[in-house]
């Protein structure tokens, strides 16, 4: 079928070996296991499938998961860009310590993160106590979910922007400076377009991760049907009814949406690179 075949003769060796291993490992760890979602959905038939994935509660959970993940990703994009900028460009005491802490959300188990945020923002917590005086409610609301997701997605953005920012040749910025551009102009017209692909990748990864996040969110969300129930929770509650097919169906929908989102992102990047070449 021609897929994964080299287009033009390439002189470097090892294509067959490396591609062979890539496809093998990818199949064993990712593709075959993921295909189980599909195979477990098929036997249920089209109508029950549609029924399962479009029930009002399920639809409400998609809406909630996508909107909270989106807001969290936007917030992460801003906070991540800021953090990457400060960490790469400035020198100040304690910088390396802060740099180290960026990876914390990866290492801290999501359940611990969820418990921490729920405790911090509860009416008896360090932050909740103050916030409640201003009538701001974080836990058991969509805002709480966004807070947890911002934490979960943050390293993705920083860690994708950081290397790119580190490699930017400062001569270009200097040139812009000599030509009379202000810092802000240089940033907006030169740096931002250059950083944009990385920023987009980072926030899309944060977004995709946010849609699927379970462990941290359930502690802070409140989990009220139609209001604060996230999509992964729908999968869990179907599983607790021993409804494997229904759970797979919802999982399949989430998977397809995430996959097409990433596909578009990668296609955009591929296209952008071609433009530049």
């Amino acid at each position, binding site marked *: 079928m021609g897929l994964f075949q080299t287009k033009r003769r390439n002189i*470097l060796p090892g294509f067959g070996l490396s591609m062979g291993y890539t496809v093998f490992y990818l199949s064993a760890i990712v593709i075959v296991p993921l295909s189980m979602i599909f195979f477990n959905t098929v036997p249920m038939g089209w109508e029950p499938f549609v029924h399962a994935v479009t029930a009002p509660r399920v639809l409400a959970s998609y809406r909630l998961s996508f909107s909270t993940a989106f807001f969290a990703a936007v917030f992460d994009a801003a906070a991540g860009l800021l953090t990457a900028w400060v960490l790469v460009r400035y020198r100040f005491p304690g910088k390396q310590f802060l740099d180290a802490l960026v990876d*914390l959300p*990866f*290492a801290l188990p999501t359940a611990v*993160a969820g418990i921490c945020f729920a405790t911090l923002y509860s009416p008896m917590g360090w932050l909740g106590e103050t916030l409640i005086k201003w009538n701001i409610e974080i836990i058991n609301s969509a805002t709480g979910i966004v807070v947890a997701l911002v934490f979960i997605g943050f390293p993705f953005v920083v860690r994708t922007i950081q*290397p790119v920012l580190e490699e930017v040749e400062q001569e270009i910025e200097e040139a812009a400076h000599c030509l009379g551009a202000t810092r802000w102009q240089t940033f907006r017209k030169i740096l931002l377009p250059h950083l944009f692909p990385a920023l987009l990748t980072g926030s899309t990864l944060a977004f995709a991760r946010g849609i*699927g996040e379970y462990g941290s969110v359930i502690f802070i969300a409140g989990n009220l049907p139609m209001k604060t129930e996230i999509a992964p929770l729908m999968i869990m509650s179907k*599983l607790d009814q021993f409804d494997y097919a229904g759970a797979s169906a919802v999982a399949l929908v989430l998977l397809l949406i*995430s*996959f097409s989102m990433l596909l578009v992102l990668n296609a955009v990047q591929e296209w952008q690179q071609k433009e530049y070449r």
Partner: protein
Amino acid sequence: MLKPTTTESGPIVKKRVSDPLPIRILLIGAMLLFFTAFIFLPLGLVFAQAFQKGWTLYLESITEPYALEAVKLTLITVAIVVPLNAFFGVTAAWAITKFNFSGKAALKTILDLPFAVSPVIAGLIFVLLVGSRTPFGSWLGEHGIKIIFSTPGIVIATLFVTFPFVVRELIPLMEAQGRDEEEAALTLGAKGWQIFGKITLPNISWGLLYGMILCGARSIGEFGAVSVVSGHIRGQTNTIPLHVEILYSEYNFTASFAVASILVFLALLTVGIKVTMEKQFKKNSIHHQD
């Protein structure tokens, strides 16, 4: 395009055009504010709770046999997962960046996919694949091979979750570097493995290390997927994150946060390694440039 250079833009080129002081202070301040709300406070909470009842109890909680078993299991998992995913990352990145073929964007997307899969689903798929309800799973069971609800299941689920980290880190780097150096070496008569060992690997060692660290950090902390395939047998199939959760649901908050603090230390340790290697690396590259 502003083509990223392959040489480290280390301390020598730094600090020519810089932002004015007020802006620097403003930005650093804003970042610290964000860190306070999202990193320092949760971290502070972990340690405040962990040391609430003093050092003795803290040490007791982290040296208790179940906790040690959990640490052991987590470290075994990391020791298997990181090299496997690193090896794959290098191979896949070589195939993807050194050759042109159709379906590249699709392949890259599939590589990203585990990031986007909910941890709940990540656990579920392995249950659906090798759980004892399935033909394959029951065949394995009859032959006495345990995968899920024992160490191999935990390792596989972690492999899946941390799958993209290394390759994700390497692809952009190797794409930026191109293939000129390798092709030049080839015309000079170098063998495939020599090219890889002497040219490609030194060029990417930095990104490889970075990817491995992220992969390691994430495999230490993975909770959702592992929770599905673990079976939660105390002292046998509990990783550190699962042990933390169990202690917490036993209302044993001090011990729970004490064990969680091990994770924080492990995270800091991996990053410490990174920083040390970074310094080493920069020293070397400056040396070479002279």
